[in-house]
């Protein structure tokens, strides 16, 4: 009896403790962080939304933005992002989770390499690894410098721009310094495509 009443008393304490802790940790804390975010760094806090020249929200600088057909083939007019296990769906961030010796993955990688080499008019050996492998999030906005470089002629032609001008845009969107050293020299495709759209002559 004594033990049972002890348990019940503690259960009551536990419930009240949990409720009070929820008010502090589950409501006050996130709201304060929200307030600080809106006051100090609203751009980051709201999802790094970038605008087009007309001032409308066009993309998040952190999220891949891809137009692709049902088979997953990306629109040839734009720089392509990395393959995505979730088809670049922002409500389904996911990786393929296929093992390093997986036969399905092996086939997919080989097929992607052949397709990209043909589309870009380069040798298969010039297609970098990030172009044929799905990212961890499925929403990776970045590609390698090598993958950007082989896409320059195609995108320049599609928009009536000179390859030199497009390559300059790539360079401007390539991360440098310590970020490139600790991470990798990478190009943000989402922002790059917005740059291309802004620079392209109106059709």
């Amino acid at each position, binding site marked *: 009896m004594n033990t049972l009443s002890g348990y019940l008393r503690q259960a009551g304490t536990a419930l009240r403790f949990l409720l009070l802790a929820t008010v502090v940790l589950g409501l006050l804390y996130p709201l304060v962080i929200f307030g600080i975010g809106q006051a100090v*760094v609203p751009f980051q806090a709201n*999802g790094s939304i970038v605008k087009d020249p007309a001032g409308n*929200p066009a993309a998040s600088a952190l*999220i891949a933005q891809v137009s692709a057909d049902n088979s997953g083939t990306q629109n040839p007019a734009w720089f392509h992002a*990395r393959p995505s296990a979730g088809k670049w769906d922002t409500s389904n961030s*996911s990786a393929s*989770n*296929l*093992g390093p010796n997986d036969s399905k993955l092996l086939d997919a990688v080989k097929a992607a390499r052949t397709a990209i080499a043909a589309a870009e008019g380069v040798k298969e050996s010039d297609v970098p690894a990030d172009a044929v492998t799905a990212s961890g999030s499925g929403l990776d906005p970045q590609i390698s410098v090598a993958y950007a470089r082989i896409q320059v002629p195609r995108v320049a032609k599609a928009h009536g721009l000179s390859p030199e001008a497009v390559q300059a845009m790539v360079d401007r969107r390539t991360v440098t310094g310590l970020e490139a050293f600790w991470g*990798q020299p990478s190009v943000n495709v989402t922002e790059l495509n917005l740059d291309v759209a802004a620079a392209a002559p109106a059709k």
Partner: protein
Amino acid sequence: MVFSVASFITQVAVLLLLLVLVHKPLGIYLARVFEGTKSTRVERVFYRLAGVDRNTEQSWAIYLRSVLVFSSISILVVFLLQRLQGVLPGNNSLPGVDPWTAMNTAISFATNTNWQVYTPEATMGIFVQMCLLAVQNFLSAAVGIVVVVALIRGIARTRTDRLGNFWVDLARTSFRVLLPMAAIAAIVMLIGGVEQTFWSTDVTNQAAGITQTIPGGPVASQEAIKILGTNGGGYFNANSAHPFENPNVFISLFQVFLILLIPSALPYAYGRMVGDQRQGYTVAAVMGTLWLASTVLMGWAFAGAEGTATAAAGGLGEGFEQRFGAAQSSIFATATTLTSTGAINVAHDSIPPMAGGITMLNMMLGEVAPGGTGSGLYGLLILAIVSVFIAGLMVGRTPEFLGKKIGPREMKLTAMYILVTPTIVLATAGVTVLLPDAMANAPASGPHQFSEVLYAFTSAANNNGSAFAGITSSGPYLSSVIGVAMLLGRFLPMVLVLALAGSLAKQPKIPASSGTVPTHGWLFGSLLLSVTVIMTALSYFPALSLGPLAEGLLK
């Protein structure tokens, strides 16, 4: 994706430097929080409202009962409110969570595991994430810490049956340690690009004709405690690979720092509380050596980039995020599995076979280098007791640990602790591989399929929460067996640790003599290191050789 050795070395060096700088002031602060007797006015109001008698200390049995009752109530409340999501506010138009998922998730978050059988974006609305899951991220981390604090008190105190007050310890750890640290971490993350909103944003790229809904949520506040409390449950499905959870390599390195922060400061607090700083430094040195060794091994395995599909791709890439690079991802994979975190910034299922093996081995070590918040230190202290026992056998004396006799009762509790986790892992994984229906949930073939199953139960029983995520664990069988593994893997060790604390506290302190094996210094540190590795290798080597070793060695 090239593995940059220079990037790897400098990142490891920066991490080590930061941790060396911070562990002492943080350790002192932690010890003060745990040893303090004064309460602030706000805390006194809190205790009164919660019905806590802050001046009464508890015996080990009552302390344990409080741990178990509090955790049970947490599981029950998180389960019920997930089921009711459909009628609660802040549900983002999502229905109530299905019972198997809700059960598994409630256990998972209350046990500091954060195994996720669900896709957050499609299952959990803002209310569930912010008011249930993130709150458990704080409280489950705090429960781990208070259990090791009770053990330390048991070692430090003499001739008493009192170990402290669970409720006071829990409140102090939550509000004086985790909350302020999480707030600072969240602000750093905000500045680095992690979002904190309560709405999604529709965007339109008119030139390319693309519309997207950019998901929003209180991510920064949740991410901070997810990492700091070695929890690991992501706001998004892709976890710390998602750009909104982990936007760049700096934040990623910061997350590794936060993962290691509290566990690596606790040894200093331990040394201070037992009145012998050398004890803390020896434990910290063992943790640091294991961490460094595992990190280097992981770097080697990543750099090797083994695997037929990986070779066909021309290197690492599958499951990696471009912004982190291979070096940062290898450091992250080590830290997350050597602690009970389980956050991932690279898909562990896709990393090279030997690297996958090291992630499993890290968890199998018992997550003690530096381990989960609290659980890492009590795990290593248990191994230290095993070490003095072995040393005692060698010199033919009754083993002692910091002036306390390690008698039959203490040794039985210690031995059971050592056996519990391997038993759960090997039994559940062993039974599961015999069930064809259950194995169908792991879609890979050959050794990799076994690895997916072994990883799942290793992760569950060690309360890690990361996965070889090719496995689908949301069905009734896996979600319930994994749920049981998480429960037993969390609370059986805690029962044994608190029983041990109670039996140590009762003893008088016997003065050290010339025959006492010192529990500090190089000699003991090396012994502890060897015991830790050998215990693990003996228990798990056969299982590892069927999975990652077979896959890595068979070409």
